[in-house]
């Protein structure tokens, strides 16, 4: 075997090789951004900055279980805090502090389900049950108190209600909230996002 002998020219060539190859690859992997790329990055940054707390609203009329899954995924991806709220609407025939055991029990079940959904996605869910005369006002108040950045709601049981297809409570929340509102309308209730004639045609073409 020959002797090991490092020369200055050899060392310089070795360094030059590493620098030129790594510099070339670095330049290649950082291309200029297009208008679409810049817009996408801006939207992403805005989303990251703004979504601190996500509030998922439930009530006897607002069914948000399926949206809870979406909310948990979002919260995990955006590292947001997740708050599930169940509003028990107190009728005007009862005092505001009236005991409503059955409703409370049902609310507990819903909140427990919300927590399980959150855990399945590795997100801790804070839950709160509120008694209020108006569901919409309760959600808006809590969103204000918690400085929520996003309110997520599911469908309204009376989706076909004339004059307020999404349900009056949902419409009021959407109209008056000071943050973004995401409404998930289930296909079988919401005719706005679901074109039955096309679905039927698609089904027939499959057959």
């Amino acid at each position: 075997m020959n002797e090991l002998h490092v020369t200055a020219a050899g060392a310089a060539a070795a360094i030059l090789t590493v620098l030129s190859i790594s510099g070339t690859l670095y330049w290649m992997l950082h291309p200029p951004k297009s208008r679409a790329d810049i817009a996408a990055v801006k939207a992403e940054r805005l989303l990251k900055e703004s979504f601190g707390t996500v509030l998922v609203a439930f009530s006897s009329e607002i069914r948000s279980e399926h949206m809870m899954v979406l909310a948990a995924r979002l919260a995990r991806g955006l590292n947001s805090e997740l708050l599930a709220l169940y509003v028990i609407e107190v009728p005007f025939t009862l005092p505001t502090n009236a005991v409503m055991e059955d409703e409370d029990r049902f609310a507990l079940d819903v909140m427990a389900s919300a927590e399980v959904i959150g855990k399945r996605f590795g997100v801790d869910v804070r839950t709160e049950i509120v008694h209020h005369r108006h569901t919409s006002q309760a959600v808006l108040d809590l969103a204000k108190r918690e400085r929520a950045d996003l309110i997520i709601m599911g469908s309204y049981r009376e989706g076909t209600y004339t004059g307020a297809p999404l349900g009056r409570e949902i419409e009021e929340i959407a109209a008056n909230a000071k943050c973004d509102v995401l409404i998930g309308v289930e296909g079988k209730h919401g005719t706005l996002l679901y074109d039955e004639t096309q679905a039927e045609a698609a089904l027939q073409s499959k057959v």
Partner: protein
Amino acid sequence: MSSEIVTGERQELRRSVTPWGSYSWGYADVGADIFVALGLVIGVAGGATNIAFLFAGLVYVAVGLAYTELAAAYPVAGGGQYFVMRGLGDFLGFIAGWAVLLDFTIDITLFAWGCVGYLSHLPVLNVLDASAHPLAHFWVILALIAGLAVLNVIGVRESTAFNGFVSAIDVFSETLILVLGFLFTFHPELLIHSMQSGWPNTFQLMNGISLAIISFVGLESISHAAEETNRPASIIPRTSISLILTILIFALAYSNLALGMQPWHPVPHDAAGHAQQFWHYLGAVQNQDKAVAVMATNIPYFGLLAAFYVPVFGATLLLISSNSGVFGSSRIAYAMSQFQLLPSIFKRVHRKFKTPVISIAVFCTLAAIELVFAALQGNFGYEFLGDLYAFGAAASYTLVFVALIALRLKDPLTPRKFLIPLNLKMRFKGEEVLFPIVAVIGFLGIFAILIFVLLTHHIGRIAGPSWLLFGIVIYAIYRLRKKLPLFGSAPRNWNRDQVQILKNAGELELMDELVGKLKARDPNFTMRTP
């Protein structure tokens, strides 16, 4: 509605190649070339190996810049064949495509040969050594070609992700070999001595230059993937230029290191019992097809590991390149038959596997025939394949330069996000155009190499033109039967096609620019077919 859904899905699939993916498409092809070319060039150019690589490298930079501009401006599958067809018409487009097809079939055989060569460097597999066991060597290569053909028919082909992974490891490994080689074994005075004592005659130098060009062939793979690249007009210039630089750095560094390397192990005497320098040993017939592995083995300490790892890795990279030959040849034939340059039989896909089975079978058979011819050359079989490879590349690249100049003059409206530097402003048919000076220089360089190939490669100068003649006969029969012009072009609306190409590529800003220019020239221009 349903058609919209289909369009949406297709667009998502099409634009899925990232910058690294685009780079690795090219690298999987060109990256392996140095493993093949180094031994061949040292074998003929001796002490001027680095000069041969430098001259070929300068031409290659011009070729690379031309491909970069064209692929960014016309991001469609087909590469050189498409550019030439668009710039110079159907007949010359066919010639360019047919020359590239020669390269891709040679690709299959040459890289399969190199793959077996590198494997034979492993002590346990030295039974595959071509000089010691030619018959075993031949059958293993033939089996590899058949295996790749079957794999491609059933649809198994290298994915971009796998290419990306192998390319990343290869860039790292080749850099590591160079860094450790330069650090521990390089002696500048030995480099000068090798250049002085081993300087070849003019004929050998020309031969070396024409062989050195094969270490740069394959850049067009980036343009073949252009249609599937995300934002091709922006990404392809980056990936192409990076590939040009990487390969140039490797080629120059390896050739200089080979000439100035003090090997860790003593150099064996040659067959006649004479003492030889390390580069003599690298360029000897028994080492030509595994030169990089021999170099790596002779680096102190690292060589112990490299003895096992570099042959296996080199063989893997060469096998992928060989596979890209199978895939590329069938794809180019498919594209050519779509433009009515080849019979529609090459468009046919297998009913079950949905792959162009006839194209694969035809071009793998041609690769096997080339292997038989190469094997008949005995110890010069590897060089024979190198000769043909150089001919195909030089012929195709020569036409690409002419096409670039023609497209600058005929199609000045197409937005070019990347322009070759050094342009001359002039007017042509009432339009202001930029005449590319580098394209003229590149044309002269590559044309000179084509002449070198014809002058210095005895077999290449017969087999190469024969291949072109064979293709022209097929082309003529097909075009006459289809009642299409033989030397003219089939009618096409290139402007409308170009708008559609940019739209499909997601280059909406460039599409707007082109539509604006077309409407300014012709207010009745519409994107839709009337």
